[in-house]
């Protein structure tokens, strides 16, 4: 009994002080800045050559990578949310089906293929990567927005109209807050997808953390693969924790 209370106390304290998040962030920063130490150790353990020395520092790769991910998430949530909200507000029934179909097609079409198809028109670099990640990221947010808004209990919509709210006030004051947990879940899915899919960008010259992974695969070098994969994993975990926090912060049930 006492033990249980103790554990709860430490858990709560940990939550308040952002222990997990700060710990992950520190691990990530140390990993990025001091990877050479880990590299030496891995070389002994895995018994492989270090491979050629990376010509781009890890810090720079991480920054490139974060920019790609953040830009994609930003654009896909803007487009996905706006489109979902408009479809809901103006009851574009046909467009709803169309959007779901198109989104479904987009998701089943391989990311690499989209990127490759975009290269001829956009050239090598981060542009085709961001565009294809946006195409991918829209779908979860769009469907979450449409479904979340549609599934709001109509009792509350009726009550707000009965009190004299117009369509937009109902949307802003009632539907959106009530749908926000579902929309947030969509954003979370979209972000995690982007974080993992952004590594593929290296194949079309976008740089980022995919670069050591792709190079590692080509040269059969597990150290290089880990050099890209470990930070990606940590960033994904961190993002997940942050979303969890936002979800938990809502005070109503």
């Amino acid at each position, binding site marked *: 009994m006492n033990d249980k209370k103790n554990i709860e106390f430490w858990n709560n304290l940990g939550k308040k002080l952002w222990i997990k998040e700060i710990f992950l962030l520190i691990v990530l920063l140390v990993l990025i800045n001091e990877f050479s130490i880990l590299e030496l150790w891995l070389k002994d353990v895995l018994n492989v050559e270090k491979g050629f020395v990376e010509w781009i520092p890890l810090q720079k790769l991480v920054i490139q990578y974060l920019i790609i991910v953040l830009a994609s998430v930003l654009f896909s949530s803007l487009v996905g949310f706006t489109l979902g909200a408009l479809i809901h507000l103006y009851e574009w029934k046909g467009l709803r089906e169309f959007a779901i179909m198109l989104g479904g097609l987009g998701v089943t079409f391989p990311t690499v293929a989209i990127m490759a198809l975009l290269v001829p028109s956009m050239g090598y670099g981060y542009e085709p990567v961001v565009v294809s990640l946006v195409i991918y990221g829209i779908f979860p947010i769009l469907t979450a927005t449409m479904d979340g808004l549609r599934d709001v209990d109509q*009792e*509350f919509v*009726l*009550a*707000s*109209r*009965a*009190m*004299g*709210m*117009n369509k937009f*006030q109902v949307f802003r*004051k*009632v539907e959106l*807050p*009530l749908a926000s947990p579902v929309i947030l879940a969509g954003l979370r899915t979209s972000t995690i997808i982007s974080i993992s899919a952004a590594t593929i960008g290296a194949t079309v010259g976008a740089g980022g953390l995919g670069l050591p992974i792709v190079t590692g695969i080509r040269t059969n070098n597990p150290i290089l693969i880990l050099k890209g994969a470990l930070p990606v994993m940590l960033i994904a975990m961190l993002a997940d924790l942050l979303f969890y926090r936002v979800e938990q912060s*809502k*005070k*109503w*049930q």
Partner: protein
Amino acid sequence: MIDIKNVYKNYGDQAVLSGFDLSIKKGQLCMLLGPSGCGKSTLLKLINRLLIPEAGTIEIGGNPIENIKPELLRRNMGYAIQGSALFPHMRVEDNIAVVPRLMNWPKHKTTARIQELLDLVGLNQSFAKKYPHQLSGGEAQRIGVARALAADPEILLLDEPFGALDPVSRLQLQESFLEIQNKLKKTVVFVTHDVGEAVRMADFLVLMKNGTVVAQGRPFDIVREAEDAVWDFLGNSYTLELLERITLKDLVRNSIPIQEFKNLSELTKFKMNSTCKELLSAMLMNSNSELMVNLGGNVFQFRFEDILTSFGGENQ
């Protein structure tokens, strides 16, 4: 104040209201009583213009409601929809403040109004910061009424505001609502399917069945003119419910307390606002048609004939 003339409303090919007529006077508490499914909620939605009738007119103060912008009409009409429907993501204070904020009241006025309304519905100020999931059923329904009253509308539409409550809290809420109504004198359309509630509270009672009015009038008048249809509707114990509307204050008006009686503690205690139904119940308990009671420290003797007389008086 509210005039409903020859209103028709269908859902698909199901006729819900067919030629519905009703006039409600200013300051009147109109109880709309009918079995569930008879079209009560539909009628309120029509008055609020959430629904539009197929035919007929609805006027507020002589003005057809289609001449008023729906949002404005609704903000000036407090409406508690069936099942309280407090917004779960808003604190109690924000729920109450919905209409005042829509009407752009200054902040201090809204804040003061929230405090005033919590007092009025008999809840502590600490409720302001709570979320609806932290309220009991009775508290939520009080807040529902407070929210409907928020912008001080002339008209209140209440759709089974005390439904889904245990009988005890229901009685409490009815009593507090009557107190509030005596102070505020709103024009109220109060929907219920509970005969006791309707009879107890009504200034004006409307019996509704299958989308038409079966009978309407003051509760005592309805008995006088009652036809079989009405008795079927109200049940044969309707008169007992009516006894709840006569208080001991009405009975003692013509009598004086008994002075020589000393042993007060032996007598059943009553209050001035205790009802004739309670008195009759006490007579039955004591198997005696004459009863000495302790009425706020004074001793009175009541006889069954007193009840008959006062009932007849109301029933003239």
